[in-house]
């Protein structure tokens, strides 16, 4: 009742070089069990931690694959030939479609196929699928960032269409994350979009941020801005921050150890001290410029090229068409990233809006030369 088993070359180190072994077993399961018992290390080669046969291991009885028979319950009789053959597989990094799509990246020395692979492997979380998240999401997707996470709880409203270019008129009333996912899928089907229809708060921020390499902040309210900042600092994630207010925008990259939003604004202003989002108004094209710059900084982070906007706050005035750069430094007394932090867990603030520039920064802004 002896069965012959063919041992593939890669497993012969375990069988002392034998290419064929004989065993007495009534079925495949028994046969594999016998091999596992006789040859230390065989079990790991055949099965995962749960004891399931690896999907890249093929077992044949008389040239017939066991998945076409009774699986591991396939009965054996004397004289049967059993073969164990690992899969032969591989692949190349890009499809023809991708090579054509990213050809302008491939021509750049600083990107090329290896940079494109970095983009493909990158996971970026966009907080908000609105004014900033729209251009950022479109450009990151077009550039080939492999996975984009989107968190937003809102539905598309007519008033969004003036600037939130991920959404179209016929999507009014749809969830923003679903509308965004649809648009990105049309632009670049190679991008995986992970839609999180939720409000960012202390209950989900850590869990969500942990899943991604970079966080692009496109929030329009203070509670989320402080929450995103604190979560990024506490997890050591780089936050690509942007903000807009009427005719002005600002962009910076908060990298762990190089300061954070609370170094500039230690605590939120009291509710009512700043105009609500709806009241403030914003020029339509402005978030397109700011969100695109955030996307650019994100790509520079992923590729590791250029001088990142770390330790610098870029201010943009749409009316005068002027860019100014302010130097930012980590504040040793910062409540979250300072030497003796007092904030060690996430805080949920109440809803309020606006983005005032503190007096000392406003002064400095007038003194700093345009870069």
């Amino acid at each position: 009742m002896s069965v012959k088993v063919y041992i593939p070359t890669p497993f012969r180190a375990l069988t002392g070089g034998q290419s064929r072994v004989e065993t007495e077993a009534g079925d495949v399961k028994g046969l594999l069990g016998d091999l596992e018992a006789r040859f230390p290390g065989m079990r790991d080669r055949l099965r995962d931690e749960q004891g399931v046969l690896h999907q890249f291991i093929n077992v044949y009885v008389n040239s017939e694959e066991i998945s076409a028979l009774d699986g591991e319950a396939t009965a054996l009789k004397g004289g049967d030939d059993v073969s164990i053959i690992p899969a032969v597989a591989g692949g190349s990094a890009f499809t023809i479609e991708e090579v054509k799509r990213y050809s302008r990246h491939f021509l750049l020395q600083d990107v090329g196929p290896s940079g494109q692979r970095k983009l493909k492997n990158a996971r970026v979380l966009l907080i908000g699928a609105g004014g900033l998240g729209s251009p950022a999401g479109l450009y990151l997707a077009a550039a080939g960032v492999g996975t984009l996470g989107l968190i937003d709880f809102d539905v598309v409203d007519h008033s969004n269409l003036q600037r939130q270019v991920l959404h179209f008129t016929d999507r009014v009333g749809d969830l923003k994350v679903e509308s965004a996912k649809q648009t990105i899928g049309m632009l670049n089907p190679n991008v995986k979009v992970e839609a999180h229809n939720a409000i960012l708060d202390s209950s989900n921020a850590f869990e969500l941020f942990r899943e991604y390499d970079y966080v692009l902040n496109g929030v329009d309210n203070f509670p989320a801005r402080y929450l995103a900042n604190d979560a990024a600092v506490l997890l050591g994630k780089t936050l690509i921050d942007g903000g807009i207010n009427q005719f002005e925008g600002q962009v910076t990259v908060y990298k762990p150890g190089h300061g954070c939003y609370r170094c500039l604004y230690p605590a939120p202003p009291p509710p009512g001290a700043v105009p609500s989002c709806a009241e403030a108004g914003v020029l339509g094209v402005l978030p397109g410029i700011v969100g695109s710059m955030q996307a650019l900084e994100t790509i520079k982070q992923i590729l590791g090229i250029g001088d990142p906007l770390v330790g610098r706050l870029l201010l943009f005035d749409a009316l005068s068409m002027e860019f100014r750069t302010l130097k930012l430094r980590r504040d040793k007394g910062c409540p979250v990233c300072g030497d003796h932090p007092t904030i060690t867990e996430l805080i949920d603030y109440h809803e309020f809006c606006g983005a005032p520039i503190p007096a000392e920064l406003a002064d400095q802004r007038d003194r700093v030369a345009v870069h």
Partner: protein
Amino acid sequence: METVSIARSQIDAIVAHARAGAPDEVCGVVAVREGEVVRVMPTRNAAATPRNRFEIDSRDLMRVVEVEREGHDVGFYHSHPVSVAYPSATDIGFAELWPGALQLMVSLRQDVPGGTGPEFHAYRIVPPQVNVVPLVIDESR
């Protein structure tokens, strides 16, 4: 240093298979005897996304046993329709299942009008190491 000899007609057969299968990747099994490729056997590509992946169809894998039963060493070939004839990260990862096996690779990226033609190379991969195996082409066979 190890070299492997291969007949021009065998290279032609692999290139013809790659061209016929493009834009998908194609794959196959080869038999090697004392540093000489003695047989080339095309197999089916069962990968779910064959544009940039290959997986020898399990129905064709018994070829491996045949080759070894004949007393030959088993090797493999596959094509890269658009990228270079060099193992990708995925190739290197999967080579863990067959470390050290002869891997022939053909690239069609230059197989276009005005291009320099198909590129053909051989490797033995012991992840993460990729060893180039110089090919000696027998033009008479």
